[in-house]
């Protein structure tokens, strides 16, 4: 296809498909690609913008020409301005003579950029960014120009993907570690242990646990699962976790706390969905009150019992599922030696197996021992020799 064309075009293609570029780190590769694009197309500005994890804004990742002095500080809302339009439509866009409202970047407007061409950066069928070029002198961008932009965008997509996955993984892990301490606090009258195991297929997800003691002497035990994975769901998880703690200070009724949390999620985290089981232990450690929101039932291990059983309690709807969902409580009388296990679905759900079989395996594998042994028995028995696809969180408690 290219052989019949101007040899200059072949050189242009070589310049951006150059294998040497592969050795560069992602950021350097994006800069190099954008510098070459600006030279090859003889334009005044060339920029790659990438969609931020929320999907609402395009952020400049590399730029050459007019916008260089801005130190990559350009953020364009999705659907707005030239780049925003390209990202929203997922199609190339050429404007020979821009008019008022076509541009968002103040630099392009101030410099009287006249002609623009842009293509979406697509990875795995989804728009992840935009590559756009512009000239001050009027110009008609050709099919060949667009074709070259597409080539660069493909190359940039691979680099952007690598950069995003790397940054996201590091940030998500750091956030997760700060939110999920490896050791629960020492609390009088309770022996507690926790586990978090990232999924092999999906990495860090939105599972969380929390254990805290309240000024009244009550103790809160939380297990939850925010839908989704990666940085975005870890961030939402962090906010939900903090909000639950705040409401726990206001009320020792777990249904009341989950109702307030649900309302907060519906209002401030639209689209977010989470399951959770929240338990409140009384100051004298003789009873535990539960409220369960779309979550798998906690396990109760009676003192001296050879196996566990599921808490007998109603399950209400997940958080974020329905406005003003009804929430109920169940109170369990407890005595020293009684064990409790709260867990997320990754512990018991397996492909092509009934969840009842998974739960039965969990229940029959639990026996005596302290909280640490309870968690160890649950995870060792359930995850033995298996690559866990989903992430798993577990809280084990023994009443002292």
């Amino acid at each position: 296809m290219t052989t019949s064309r101007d040899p200059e075009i072949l050189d242009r293609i070589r310049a951006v498909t150059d294998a040497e570029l592969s050795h560069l780190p992602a950021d350097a590769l994006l800069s190099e690609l954008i510098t070459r694009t600006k030279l090859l197309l003889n334009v005044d500005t060339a920029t790659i913008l990438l969609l931020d994890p929320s999907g609402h804004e395009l952020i400049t990742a590399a730029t050459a020409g007019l916008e260089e002095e801005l130190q990559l500080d350009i953020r364009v809302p999705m659907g707005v301005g030239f780049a925003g339009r390209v990202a929203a439509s997922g199609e190339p866009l050429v404007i020979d003579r821009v008019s008022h409202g076509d541009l968002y970047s103040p630099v392009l407007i101030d410099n009287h950029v006249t002609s623009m061409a842009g293509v979406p950066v697509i990875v795995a069928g989804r728009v992840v960014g935009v590559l756009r070029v512009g000239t001050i002198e009027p110009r008609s961008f050709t099919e060949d120009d667009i074709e070259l932009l597409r080539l660069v965008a493909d190359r940039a997509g691979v680099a952007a993907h690598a950069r995003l996955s790397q940054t996201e993984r590091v940030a998500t892990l750091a956030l997760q570690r700060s939110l999920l301490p490896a050791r629960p606090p020492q609390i009088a009258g309770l022996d507690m242990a926790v586990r978090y195991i990232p999924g092999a297929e999906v990495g860090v997800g939105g599972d969380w646990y929390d254990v805290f003691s309240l000024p009244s002497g009550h103790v809160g035990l939380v297990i939850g699962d925010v839908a989704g994975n990666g940085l975005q769901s870890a961030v939402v998880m962090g906010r939900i976790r903090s909000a639950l703690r705040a409401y726990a200070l206001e009320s020792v009724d777990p249904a009341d706390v989950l109702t307030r949390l649900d309302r907060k999620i519906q209002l401030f985290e639209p689209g977010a969905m989470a399951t959770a089981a929240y338990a409140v232990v009384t100051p004298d450690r003789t009873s535990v009150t539960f409220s369960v929101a779309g979550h798998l039932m906690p396990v109760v291990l009676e003192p001296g019992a050879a196996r566990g059983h599921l808490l007998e309690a109603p399950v209400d709807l997940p958080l974020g599922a329905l406005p003003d969902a009804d929430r109920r409580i169940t109170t369990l009388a407890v005595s020293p030696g009684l064990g409790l296990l709260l867990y997320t679905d990754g512990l018991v759900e397996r492909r092509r197996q009934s969840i009842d079989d998974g739960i039965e395996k969990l229940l029959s594998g639990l026996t005596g021992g302290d909280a640490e042994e309870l968690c160890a028995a649950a995870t060792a028995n359930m995850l033995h020799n298996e690559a866990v696809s989903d992430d798993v969180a577990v809280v084990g408690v023994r009443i002292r």
Partner: protein
Amino acid sequence: MISRSAERGELMDIATTQRDGTVAVKVTGDVDLLSRELLARSLADAVGQAESGVEVDMAGVAFLDSSGMSALLSGRRAAEDAGLTFRIIAAGDLVRRVMELTGVWPLLTGQGHE
């Protein structure tokens, strides 16, 4: 953001048909973290196209976890906001059981909570 479901499309198929204002969505395969976005998008599209309601056939689904469930609940929510009905019309035992244990079966099959 990267959709992993597009890379792992072999895990789940979605077929959508439309008749008399109802959009029928037939889901086959595993609905988990890797395929949830694809399901969520398909259900959002179905809600956008439907005039009276969305019916989801889960009979061919072999695995459903909490992330798959959240996609269904989001679909139901969007349908309700658009004044449409949303119902799961079929599901195998494994999938039904997960929905029963997590308390969402009545809501998603249109029994109660209406």
